[in-house]
């Protein structure tokens, strides 16, 4: 393609947007409303998942050793645990650390009466999981490891969190699927109307020897630009809504601030920007590409 043809195509694509201003506005509005819903939903889901993830991170499985186990044997058990792929992190807690932590948490100043460590046999490994739904299989395994006296875990908490996670995933997939289906329907209708207006124009171009590429390129440029604008508008709106909603909720409900840890806007947008722009550009590209194709067989 010559450079002059490239710029001609680009110019025509941009001109098409203004020539068919109402059609362009309708397409932008359709894409923008679908992506606005998608973006809001994504932000809410991402925060829910973050809350669940934070809760999961605090849940640990504790492994206590048989009496008289050597340091090497304890180390070996630690290595076996680390080898498990569902394990994220393992902390060794010595008997002294266990006692200090117990004192701080439960006894406070009343701990002065103890001269010896009553938790002498309480050194343990604290195991944090990558995926809490695999906790029960890890516990079953740990109970078979020689030298392990006892394994403590809260299966109820693990089940609840893993259930919440699954539920959020299913709801996400369901709602995103519905949103995408609605978007495709609305957008294909809008594009069909726009194309039927220009069917004659496409026919003329073909009669005088234009290649499919030459006819299609300005429509694709137009579709891409409309898609990108349609994505940029809801991104701006969601940014504004997210920042303000976060401030308002944290200011009004100070007591839930410790439980509700909002994801920073940068984190949400580091995914949302490429995904929304990708969906917008994709809808614009394929929408125009496929719809023009129907009229190219002249």
């Amino acid at each position, binding site marked *: 393609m*010559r450079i002059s043809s490239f710029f*001609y195509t680009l110019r025509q694509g941009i001109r098409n947007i203004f020539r068919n201003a109402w059609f362009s506005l309708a397409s932008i509005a359709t894409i923008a409303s679908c992506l606005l819903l998608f973006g809001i939903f994504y932000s809410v889901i991402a925060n829910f998942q973050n809350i669940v993830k934070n809760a999961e991170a605090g849940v640990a499985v504790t492994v206590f050793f048989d009496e008289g186990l050597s340091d090497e044997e304890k180390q070996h058990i630690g290595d076996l645990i680390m080898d498990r792929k569902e394990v994220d992190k393992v902390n060794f807690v010595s008997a002294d650390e266990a006692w200090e932590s117990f004192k701080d948490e439960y006894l406070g100043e009343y701990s002065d009466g103890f001269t010896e460590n009553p938790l002498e046999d309480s050194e343990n490994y604290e195991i944090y999981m990558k995926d809490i739904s695999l906790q029960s299989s890890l516990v079953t395994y740990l109970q078979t490891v020689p030298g392990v006296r006892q394994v403590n875990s809260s299966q109820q908490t693990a089940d609840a969190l893993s259930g919440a996670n699954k539920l959020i995933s299913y709801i996400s997939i369901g709602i995103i699927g519905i949103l995408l289906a609605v978007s495709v329907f609305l957008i294909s209708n809008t594009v069909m109307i726009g194309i039927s207006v220009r069917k004659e124009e496409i026919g003329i171009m073909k*009669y*005088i020897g*234009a290649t*499919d590429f*030459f006819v299609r390129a300005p429509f694709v440029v137009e579709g891409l630009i409309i898609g990108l604008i349609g994505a940029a508008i809801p991104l701006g709106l969601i940014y504004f809504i997210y920042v303000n909603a976060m401030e308002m909720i944290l200011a009004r409900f100070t007591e839930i601030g410790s439980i509700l840890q909002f994801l920073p806007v940068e984190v949400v947008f580091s995914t949302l920007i490429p995904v929304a722009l990708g969906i917008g550009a994709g809808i614009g590209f394929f929408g125009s590409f496929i719809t023009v194709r129907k009229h190219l067989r002249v």
Partner: protein
Amino acid sequence: MAFASKKKKGRSIADDELIVLDKVTKTYQTGAPALNGVSLSVKKGEFVFIVGDSGSGKSTLIKLLLRELVPTEGDIYVNGYNLSKLKHRQVPKYRRNLGVVFQDFRLLKDRNVYENVAFAQRIVQTPNRLIKRNVPAILSIVGLAGKYKAKPKQLSGGEQQRVALARALINKPPILLCDEPTGNLDPKNSWEIMKLLEQINKRGTTVLVVTHNREIVNEMQKRVVTMKKGVIVSDEEKGGYIDEN
């Protein structure tokens, strides 16, 4: 392109034959054949009128030559292309051998005269500096040099047809196909368009005109091919319009 050098199943093509229809039949899914075993040869530089009433097969013939349709049987050769064997991706390149003028002008309504004519050059990737030179030149030939900024709806029918003619000619195609070019014009404009076509033909372009205009056909004394119910009923050098009855 030399036909003679190519081996073909059908009849051999002489070097001076530009358009050849060899026993062409076109049958639509419903009804009788629109063309039935039509054979026709048009030599380089000829001016040919194709006449006939509605349903005679003229429109099907034009659509076949435009490669909008493919024949059900028989072969069509145009300037070295066998249209029956042309692939979809080869069609644009083939169509650049044809200048096409329609009864309803078929101009791009939202572009001005200059852009409508320049468009034909853009699709063959002519550099901008040549487009800037060629478009005013062709517009002055068709007498529209002063109206290059006008949009189609600001022009009369005759002027719109001249724009269509300029667009058809700007890439210097060897063949000009005109489908009822005067169908929407008054007698004065019709004659002006026909005079332009005659001039273009004198410069070497082969011209095929499908028309109903009896006066023009009789007056111009060119080759006349008359069609009726899908077959050629007469083909006369310096012929006239044959009455149906």
